[in-house]
């Protein structure tokens, strides 16, 4: 099992090989396409974050001391980034999640997607990921 930090590092490594934004976006789009990330029954009003640009859903579970996140989005690029986020955060302990930072997003050149004013729902997703984890550390 990789640690959260190790996963972030391997993502950074993977992104290092892309020579231009097109390759990077192709990869993210593929990630976005590859998975229906959340079960239909969890796409509830409670789990939705309505961004001005795109909507996202997040569902959290707690199993064997680990957080299990499922998420989805309606825009494919957003979905691709969600896939990266879940790869990092899902299956980690609440404590590790709470103590983690998001700098890997910066390192792979996707910072703008997590700008609080972008209104694509991703910032809210990250916030919820942490909140759900915090709730399980108490």
């Amino acid at each position, binding site marked *: 099992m990789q640690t959260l930090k190790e996963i972030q590092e391997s993502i950074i490594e993977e992104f290092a090989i892309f020579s231009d*934004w*097109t390759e990077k*976006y*192709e990869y993210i*789009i593929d990630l976005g396409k590859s998975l229906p990330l959340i079960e239909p029954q969890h796409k509830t009003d409670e789990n939705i974050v309505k961004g*001005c*640009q*795109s*909507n996202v859903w997040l569902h959290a579970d707690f199993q064997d001391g680990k957080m299990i996140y499922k998420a989805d989005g*309606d*825009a*494919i*690029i*957003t979905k691709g980034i969600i896939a990266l986020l879940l790869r990092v955060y899902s299956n980690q302990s609440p404590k590790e999640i709470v103590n983690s930072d998001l700098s890997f997003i910066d390192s792979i050149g996707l910072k703008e997607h997590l700008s609080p004013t972008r*209104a*694509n729902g991703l910032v809210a997703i990250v916030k919820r990921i942490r909140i759900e984890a915090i709730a399980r550390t108490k």
Partner: protein
Amino acid sequence: MGINIDKIRADFPILQRKVNDVPLIYLDNAATSQTPKQVIDTIANYYAKYNANIHRGVHTLSQEATELYEGARKNIQTYFNAKESHEIIFTSGTTHGINLVASGYASLLNKGEELIVSEIEHHSNIVPWQMLCEQTGAELKVIPMNINGELEMSAFDRLLNAKTRLVVVNHVSNALGTINPIKEIIKKAHAVNAKVLIDGAQAAPHIKADFQEIDVDFYTVSAHKMYGPTGVGFLYGKEELLNSLPPYQGGGEMIHEVTFEKTTYAELPHKFEAGTPNISGGIAFGATIDFIKGIGIDNIANHEKTLLEYATKSLLNIEGLHIYGNVANKTAVISFNIEGIHPYDLGNILDKLGIAVRTGHHCAQPIMSYYNIPGTVRASFAVYNTLSEIDTLVKGIQKAITLLK
């Protein structure tokens, strides 16, 4: 008769910019248009030479700044053919202008009376009226749109009645570009003694409204959408109507005399201009009018028509592309989606290619609900855009489709 695009483009320093290492193609003009150096220089010059608080000042700087500011008001009055310069109230923008009138009507409206708004409005021309109706018990009626993005005028006829106090409609829809038949709307509203407020935010950069000719009661505009600075706009109102509204904000300037027992208000336009205004903005708004006059609004409209026709034709060649808003009478705004592609994704890829478009609901959610879509991609044009930029846009969309599909 034509215009010299290269010369015009040279006036806009931002058009020299690169974005993601490619030259910027700016097609988000309906959100905010770019600013020519004539306007930028006016602002810088104001602060370098004339900056002072206006009105009531005895010293030279204050006098000069006041003359520049009031000169801008006169310039706007003349351009839009208002009867009096004090019918032009400087505001911080369209939203402020609409709220000023809505707030004033709180004391004029009675329960059971009616307001008519349309389905193709910007939120700024919906929410203040919802708030007003909640406050007063008046009822908000909605002129529905049809699939082409037009107002259903027969429905409007049915909604109008003796209880109608106010009709509020935009001159041009920001999400669709539709030019509404405001002259007809005003005439019909007046026939039942209702007043009309026109949200001219999207019209002013493209069409010159003649306030006396169309006999409009209120008309409001933002400078930043018509090559001017941010933070300034105006509300036009007929003198007797503005007089009938209570003041909006209290403060300096809007006061004749203050004691703790009784305060009397100043005359128009000061009654509605409490506090130190956006002086540099107002003066630069005057320079903006000069800029538009220099090119000629008809020349601007002609050029944009060419752009619109060319872009519409080119975009429709793209498979799966659907345009929302298909009336003959529209400004150079194209709202579209591509089958199977989320507007946000397309906007993202276009940005990587240096092309700035707007995506989302454009603060016009009722239109999105009508079409049952999350949003659109909107390309909106201005006088400095070119046919070759449209070619690049089309290529960009094709590239995005390849990536996204």
